[in-house]
């Protein structure tokens, strides 16, 4: 095992290969406070990439309700249970990663789901933690709660699927950090399915090899965001590139939100994979649960997010979500607007941070009609 540095857990850790970061790293940020689980992202991904035979059950993108939704069934609670109770303190995580916890003869601690675990893609949908008794009212954080968790492959810096494959069928692209599975080289051992704690590699029983999210690389190569990002009607996502923490660029919206404002957090950082999709945690959910899921920066992230109205630059970065199909490599706040720029610093989006308010008269004299109370 080589020693690699994982900034999310603040320390070096064991990994089967030498640590070499890509030139730039594919990344995505989700604002869970805005997601309504409409599954438009899921359908966009499905119709683009997984309409073939053997792919029927594959959701490279899915949205599940937490805490009782999972795809496949129990994916996170199963591996958390196998990992056991760990000390979740930061900024230096002292517990075991999944690589640290690998049993003898294995590269990583993992498990292979059963086929039946994929039988209910939207199990637990909208299920709340409990009932509100008569007369109760919600306080913050909510005493009964649920939230939506959109998920794609994390295109991890230290992918477990890549580490677990005994024949190097999985590779991480040096140019953008996207993790791909070579359909010609795979022999269908399913070690990647077993190893990935997020269960974002799927076995195709029709072709007898495994498949996974490709980060919409043809779009990304053309400067456009992924299908799941572009089609998000709630504008909860932004996709772009992330720099390593020692090369942070404050005018890169992803760097700004993840590294500077620390408002977006990785999913289960304790697993040790340095996943590259990041979540703005839901503000109404008890922090104890969120700390397990997103790490020890949860309270700070929520506090920062709740004061976003006082921070024009942060508000500007969040306003870029869903503002353009293209990838914003840079951004700046220009007066009342936020401006996104492509890799060549050309302007690709200009969005007012505060939507203009237009008040229309109840009676439209030109058309001699009353307007109903709609916006």
């Amino acid at each position, binding site marked *: 095992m080589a020693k690699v540095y994982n900034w999310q857990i603040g320390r070096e850790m064991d990994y089967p290969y030498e640590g070499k970061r890509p030139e730039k790293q594919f990344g995505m940020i989700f604002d869970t406070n805005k997601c309504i689980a409409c599954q438009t992202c899921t359908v966009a991904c499905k119709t683009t990439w997984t309409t073939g035979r053997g792919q029927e059950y594959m959701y490279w993108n899915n949205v599940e309700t937490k805490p009782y939704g999972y795809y496949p069934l129990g994916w996170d609670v199963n591996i958390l249970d196998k990992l056991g109770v760990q000390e979740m303190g930061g900024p230096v995580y002292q517990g075991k990663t999944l690589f640290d916890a690998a049993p003898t003869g294995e590269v990583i601690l993992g498990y292979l789901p059963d086929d039946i675990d994929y039988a209910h893609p939207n199990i637990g949908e909208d299920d709340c933690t409990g009932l509100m008794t008569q007369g109760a009212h919600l306080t913050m954080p909510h005493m009964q709660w649920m939230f939506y968790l959109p998920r794609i492959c994390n295109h991890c810096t230290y992918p477990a699927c890549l580490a677990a494959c*005994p*024949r190097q069928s999985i590779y991480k692209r040096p140019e953008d950090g996207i993790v791909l599975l070579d359909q010609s080289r795979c022999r269908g051992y399913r070690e990647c399915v077993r190893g990935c704690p997020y269960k974002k590699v799927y076995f195709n*029983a029709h072709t007898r090899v495994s498949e996974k999210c490709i980060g919409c690389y043809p779009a990304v190569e053309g400067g456009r965001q992924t299908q799941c990002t572009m089609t998000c009607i709630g504008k909860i996502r932004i996709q772009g590139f992330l720099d390593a923490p020692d090369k942070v660029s404050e005018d890169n919206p992803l760097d700004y939100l993840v590294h500077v404002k620390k408002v977006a957090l990785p999913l289960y950082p304790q697993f040790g994979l340095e996943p590259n999709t990041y979540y703005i945690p839901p503000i109404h959910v008890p922090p104890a649960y969120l700390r397990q899921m997103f790490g020890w920066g949860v309270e700070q992230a929520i506090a920062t997010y709740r004061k976003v109205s006082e921070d024009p630059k942060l508000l500007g970065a969040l306003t870029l979500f869903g503002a353009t199909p293209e990838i914003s490599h840079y951004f700046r706040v220009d007066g009342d607007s936020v401006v996104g720029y492509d890799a060549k610093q050309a302007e690709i989006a200009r969005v007012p941070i505060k939507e203009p308010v237009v008040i229309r008269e109840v009676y439209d004299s030109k058309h001699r009609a009353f307007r109903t109370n709609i916006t």
Partner: protein
Amino acid sequence: MRARLSAAVLSALVFWACGAEAQAPLTAVRVRGAGPIVEPTASVWKQSRAVKVAMLPQTVTPPQKPDAAIKELVVRAIHNGGWVAFLIEWRDPTLSNRIVLDNFGDQVAVQLPLDPKGAVPSPMMGNAGGRVNIMQWRAAFQNDIEVGPPTVQGLYPNAWADVYPDELMSAADARPYTGALGLENPISRGVATAVLDQMAEGWGSMTVKPDQHALGRGTWRDGVWRVVITRPMVSDDVNAPRLLPGDRTVAGFAVWEGGNREVGARKAWAPWVPLVIGR
């Protein structure tokens, strides 16, 4: 990584050295006839002497299956001057030829050094410069040939999809939606034979050869697999061994019990067995 690999290869060779002492040699008896020998129940097998081969769980490189199910193979070998064949028998109470996420297939493989007269390669799929020929029979491939290739409806009778790309487009346009099949990944389907003719130079290097010469067939009855794997003794394939009557070489074996979720490196293997090609 390289240091770990070397240590593992060394330990495998030590295993081989120890195992070779106890292992009875396998003699490919010359029989009459010509052409491929693929029938496991043919009477010609009575002319050969059965050799018991003890199987070990693969515990040298990850991933491993310390509780690999198959402990012993019974192997016979014959040749007819043109084709050499191995009949491999083992007890397996579960027939596993349906491949889905949590179902793995029964498999067995014969390994031969590419150069029967050269230095003996590592028994664990060869080593850099020590290339081996690995012929792997797959129960799922045999099922493909006998019953037909897998279909979604066959694997999951209650599955339903409105429409597939290949129902709307030409085969060429629908090809990007077919994944490994569209790329003709040889692992996806058994085309003409249930045996994959492959070569390797160590772990992770297994490659299906462009020229496929190996054939075979298996029968599963009363909880016993009887599988024949056969290949031409001489061919124009530079990645195939050249075997002549009187040659002395070695053969290796590996077996996977699909019902025990064995696949890839999670298998039982045997150190080299001395192999004599009868005159």
